């Protein structure tokens, strides 16, 4: 049972990392990238392409893939999302653009790379890690540690550094932040790049376990979005709780019932939490002057 709990927590850490990307961009731009799953898939295919480069160590390959996807994230923000900002809260064309982009990318990946699962060829640890009280697949343990470290690092960046202060200023009032010299759009661009790139590193460790394939997006997107909603959109620490709650609920319901119940239990938890706390567990209440 403890082993199952740990597996749920490990997968929850991955959801938390991807959810952190949602949180970053939502804080700074009020938008989210619904094509993040396909960005992760692109990163995995880049990593797959780098697998044969013998002189590049595995962590460097992941970093290269992450940097390229970070650049893609920045470009998408600059050319496909930014044009729709500052046109009112009801302008949701950014949402349509990212959903359309997701469909376009998955089709391009399927048609260019095929739909089969392929081994990534590196960043894979075989076997089971014996923790004394339970055994956990070593790869999942590695993924959990890396994802957790990245979630915490991003949270600290946002809460303890100058860049984080600028992000918070933009999050609270973008117009006023610009008046004091903060480039809100550049901040948004950095958020997109950081969120996309970090997701690639964590998700690649998961993909090394299950194989590289174009359809990873939908598998990750819903769970990560649920984690962000549970934690409270905008809360950089809340996503961690959100990811763990979602991952553990899904896993334990699968243990106690079956995979069908498990796959919907996490979403039921989202609804239950939203009923009690509509802004999520850790989001700060927004006071708006009217």
């Amino acid at each position: 049972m403890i082993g199952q709990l740990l597996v749920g927590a490990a997968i929850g850490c991955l959801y938390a990392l991807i959810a952190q990307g949602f949180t970053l961009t939502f804080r700074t731009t009020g938008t989210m990238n619904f094509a993040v799953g396909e960005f992760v898939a692109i990163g995995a295919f880049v990593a797959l392409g780098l697998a044969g480069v013998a002189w590049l160590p595995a962590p460097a390959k992941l970093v290269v893939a992450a940097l390229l996807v970070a650049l893609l994230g920045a470009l998408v923000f600059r050319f496909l999302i930014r044009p729709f900002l500052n046109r009112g809260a009801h302008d949701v064309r950014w949402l349509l653009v990212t959903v359309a982009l997701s469909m376009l990318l998955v089709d391009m990946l399927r048609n260019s790379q095929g739909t089969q699962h392929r081994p990534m060829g590196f960043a894979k640890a075989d076997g089971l890690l014996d923790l004394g009280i339970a055994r956990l697949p070593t790869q999942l343990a590695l993924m959990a540690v890396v994802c957790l470290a990245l979630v915490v690092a991003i949270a600290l960046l946002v809460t303890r550094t100058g860049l984080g202060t600028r992000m918070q200023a933009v999050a609270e009032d973008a117009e006023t932040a610009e008046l004091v010299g903060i480039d809100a759009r550049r901040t948004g661009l950095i958020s997109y790049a950081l969120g996309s790139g970090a997701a690639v590193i964590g998700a690649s460790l998961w993909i090394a376990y299950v194989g590289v394939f174009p359809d990873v997006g939908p598998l990750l997107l819903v769970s990560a979005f649920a984690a962000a909603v549970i934690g409270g959109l905008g809360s950089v620490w809340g996503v961690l709780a959100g990811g763990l709650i979602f991952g553990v609920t899904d896993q334990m319901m699968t243990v106690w019932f079956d995979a069908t119940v498990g796959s919907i239990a996490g979403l039921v938890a989202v609804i239950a939490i939203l009923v009690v706390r509509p802004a999520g567990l850790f989001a700060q209440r927004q006071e708006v002057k009217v």
Partner: protein
Amino acid sequence: MVRRRRLLAVGGAAAVTLLLAACGGGGGSESSNGKQAKIGLIGPKSGAAQFYWTELSRGIELAQPDVKSAFGVTFDLEEADDKGSPEVASRSVQTLLNEENVDAIFGPSQSGPSLQVAETIQRTGRPWLVPIAAADQIIAPNASPNWAFRTNNNNSDAIAVSANYLWAKPDAKVGIFYGADAYGQSNNDLLKAYTKAHGKTIAAGEVVQPGATDVSPAAQRMKNAGVTSVFIAVSTGADNATVVKALKQVGLAPERTLATATTLTGFTALATPADWKNLVFLEPRDLTGGPFTTLVQRYQAKYGKQPTSAVAVFTTYTAAYLYAQAVAKVGDASKHDEVREAMENTGQLKILGQVFDKPFSAKDHELYEADPSSWYTIGFDPQGRTTTVGKVAQG
């Protein structure tokens, strides 16, 4: 003089036109010219199951030079993309039959689209080769005449042979991991139907979500149920890998672990030799035998890579050969009735040295049978290469 020349010219042109019309209109069809057959090739050129299209078209490509040298038959291919969708397949088949006026249909590759077009093809009356799709209902056993010929095994035959293997010991406790998709559900339903018909029970049934990271809870339940034979019916090699990893994680080492041929799609690349040590799957074709390996080697030589589904290539090659042999016998691909009859009455079909004697009859349009003595148990060696363990009937 000029008038006379004009009359001659007009008369000559009319004669040439009539002659050309007579040449092109054999049997009222413009689709073929004797031993040249116009084939409608339909499958998922785009979409999630694109590799099935690749193998379908490559299976035909590999057969073309062989059927030309063996029977003098050539294929003129008319391609159609069904995008893996029954709706699109329905439209595409109408176009192939009514506008392109093809002599035969090969495909669709998948069961859903094939089931959708079955009635249309039967009604139109055109030889229909089903080289890959395995759903039982595609071939209607009571159709008369029956235009469909399957060169792959069907699902219920595979399940019957699998059950024979899983319950080799009558008191075996059998558990099934099945995918939450159509493939897994269909296997689960067929196994349930088998158990009902044969007085057996399934000790544990666990659904696997495609792409799942961890199915150890399901494996634990299977262990708790005391399962001794495990059947894995999931649609990708990756999901197969997830299941065997979970068995190891919970310490369940069944006496028999049986997968389906989907395990060939990337399983060994995602698992370790310890994971596949006791894993086998069953095939009516000897995947390490001469005919099969010959075709795979030719595939590699021509396309520079291993096929994603060598079985699909082989069964498509077989379909092309079967059809060409019938066309050669009739001498005219546009005589559809006669070609169908020739396929039904095939005396012997030789595929790269493998011989099928009287493979079809009016009531049987399936190339393979559910006879365990003719099926092979296939496993993997430590390097991940397929290896034939023996015949299923040998245990």
